[in-house]
């Protein structure tokens, strides 16, 4: 039984990303030479990275879940729920009225952020609890939650957009930040810090080791005295919290809470993890790989737009890449 060493497994998403960048550079140079400069510009990089923040942060949480052998289909709905929660809290704390002198103090914004993250962590907790205690497969448990969370988001928002006064959060997702020394949007840096935290957690903590162990072989984990159910719940809660942060970033982009936002986003998030080397069989995946996967998805979209490729072709290419990534995973384990 030959198997690629772990480092080579990590290399794959990296090589994949470089390949995609190179491929599009060549294609654009041939077919749309006028766009080449724009494609390779710093400005485009700034935009690309900013656009990857929401999927990237949520995918970090999904990485934990997928390594543990689970799946969470409710993350898209959770993002929408988070935008509604953060917007509602800010709206509640705002002084003045819409149109004139409508302001909010940063305290209320921070409260809103906290509430959104907590709310999504609770959704994740329920996901973990239902699948661990009632032995309902995560696919079904989170498929149900996908509807429930979406419904709650619409309910909390009164089935419409929740408008808020402008606040500091909007600057988080500005591709060209006001503080030019930051180079990238603050959201990008938040994503980078979270990625480092998740990477360290996975590699150097007992919790991370148990996450791999549960995904690699749940029976072995139980045999070795790991409380599998307890850790499952914790993993889903953390995924929820990270998705909550992604939701706050979504709010920052929109400037309002929108319960119908982020439909189907869970598929992009799962795709990022799988392209990044995560295995749906569990036991494999990495924070860095996931970020590279998320970037690859965006470069693809961005490149296609620059090439003027219709969106349906983008769908076809994207879908194929996901299946190819999973196929490579199979080959690795033959």
């Amino acid at each position, binding site marked *: *039984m030959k198997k690629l060493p772990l480092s080579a497994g990590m290399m794959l998403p990296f090589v994949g990303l470089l390949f995609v960048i190179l491929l599009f550079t060549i294609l654009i140079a041939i077919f749309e030479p006028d766009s080449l400069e724009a494609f390779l510009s710093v400005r485009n990089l700034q935009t690309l990275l900013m656009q990857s923040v929401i999927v990237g942060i949520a995918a970090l949480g999904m990485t934990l879940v997928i390594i543990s052998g689970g799946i969470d289909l409710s993350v898209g709905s959770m993002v929408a729920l988070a935008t509604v929660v953060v917007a509602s809290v800010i709206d509640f704390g705002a002084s003045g009225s819409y149109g004139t002198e409508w302001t909010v103090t940063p305290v209320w914004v921070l409260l809103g952020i906290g509430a959104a993250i907590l709310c999504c962590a609770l959704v994740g907790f329920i996901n973990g609890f239902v699948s661990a205690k009632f032995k309902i497969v995560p696919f079904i448990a989170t498929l149900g939650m996908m509807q429930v969370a979406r419904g709650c988001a619409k309910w909390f928002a009164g089935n419409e957009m929740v408008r808020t006064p402008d606040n500091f959060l909007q600057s988080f997702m500005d591709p060209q930040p006001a503080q030019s020394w930051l180079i990238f949007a603050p959201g990008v840096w938040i994503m980078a810090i979270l990625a480092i935290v998740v990477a360290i957690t996975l590699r150097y903590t007992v919790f991370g*080791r148990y996450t791999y*162990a549960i995904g690699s*072989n749940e029976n072995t984990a*139980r*045999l070795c005295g*790991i409380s599998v159910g307890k850790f499952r719940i914790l993993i889903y809660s953390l995924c929820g919290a990270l998705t909550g942060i992604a939701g706050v970033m979504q709010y920052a982009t929109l400037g309002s809470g929108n319960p119908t936002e982020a439909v189907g986003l869970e598929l992009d998030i799962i795709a990022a993890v799988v392209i990044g080397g995560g295995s749906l069989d569990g*036991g*494999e995946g990495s924070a860095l790989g996931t970020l590279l996967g998320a970037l690859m998805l965006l470069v693809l979209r961005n490149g296609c737009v620059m090439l003027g490729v219709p969106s349906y072709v983008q769908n076809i290419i994207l879908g194929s890449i996901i299946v190819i990534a999973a196929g490579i995973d199979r080959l690795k384990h033959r």
Partner: protein
Amino acid sequence: MSEALLQVRGVHKRFGPVHALKGVDLDIYPGEVHALIGENGAGKSTLMKVLSGAHRPDEGEITFAGKPFVPENPQHARESGIAMIYQELTLAPHLTIEENITLGMEDSRYGFVQHRDQAVQETLELLGQKSLHPRTSVGSLPIGTRQLIEIARAIVNNARVVILDEPTSSLSVENTQALFRVIRKLRAKGIALVYISHFLEEVQQISDRYTVLRDGATAGSGLIPEITIPSIIKMMVGRSLTDMYPKTDHIIGEKVLAVENLSGTPWPKNVSFTLRQGEIMGIFGLVGAGRSETMRCIFGLDEKISGEVYLKDRSIKHRINPKNSLKTGIDFLSEDRGKEGLAQRMSIAANTTLSALRKTSTKGFINLIAEQLVSQKWRDFMKTKCHRVTDPVSSLSGGNQQKVAFSRILHHGSEIVILDEPTRGIDVGSKSEIYGHIQKMASKGKALIVISSYLPELQGVCDTIGVMYRGILSPVKTVEEWTEHDIMAFATTGTTSQEETTIPQLSDL
């Protein structure tokens, strides 16, 4: 006697270095029940897999109905008239009785399935199951009835030889008797039945003739009325011990573990024993006797229904689960390295330290260097052959994987260690090394329980032996106090008395 329907002569089968069949002879006549008897690993399953087309023989001749016969694949064997009914039933629970019976052999017209309710109904009647409707879904039927459906499948497809592999291991007494009635009916129809069973009193009750396999070869055959159970047992075990059991002196001390009236579903049944410091206790029994289940109850992998477990003299008050057991100093080696024992995709180092991560971590952070160092230490101690301890466990051979599983137990350092089939599927060299490690652990004062289906290894490595039969445990006696015959007798009949081999009482089951 008439011509043999199925004749096997000098069949050999090798799997790499393992010589599983070393010249088997077998004659099956039409209209007889032929018992195939042998210890675990004697070659029964391999022989049956050859006959049913799952394996191809390396040497030897098989004739079926007077013509040379080498089944290409299970489909071919089935179409030729040899039906295999496995221990684990192979019915699709969501399909109906009729659909299951005709599965893979449907009559069709223009691609549409033609139901054969008529034929199925007739067969069910033959089997004494008039009340069953062919359109009932199989999932709703009790296990005993499902087995009859499997047999019905064989009959509907015109099988001439029906092989039953341990058909009664999961059946109650009543269901067993019902099965026997069916077997007798089939025999009367001229069908030949091969009956594989560990339970000798059943064999005596139902069979006409027998063939005993030992170490891959035929040890004897003849008519059932002409032989006694003790003689069959003698035929099964008559072999020599090879010197592969290194001994280390160890002193048996204080009592460390006591189990009283432990029961679970379906096994164990009121099991009681005590284990002392430095003692190596063997648990013998045939597959399905409830040995693993008993030990898994004690460790907490399976749920117990009733009974008490005492550590030293204290009754265990906390919930029995693996986490608490490890905390109180009980460790368990799983019989299945692939599905349970080891996380195959994880590294050797991660597997070694998984049950005692506390030892190489501070405040939740793992010290990867310390982890590598201790893993290398255990690798050297166990003489595990691997390139790096960061390699995945799946890259190792079976014997080396088992050494990683042992490393984990040694690293955790529990005082009581339960080893379930510690030498299953590993090469002879590694086996001997593992026996040596078991002895060394006992000499360090650990108390060990070794479950095995291979009697010589228990006799070679253990101080005391207990035998299990259908969930009950015999008195635990020293190796010297047991005779091989008594062990085999208890394992196959639930009693050691040689004269009376009665059918076990309901209360025992």
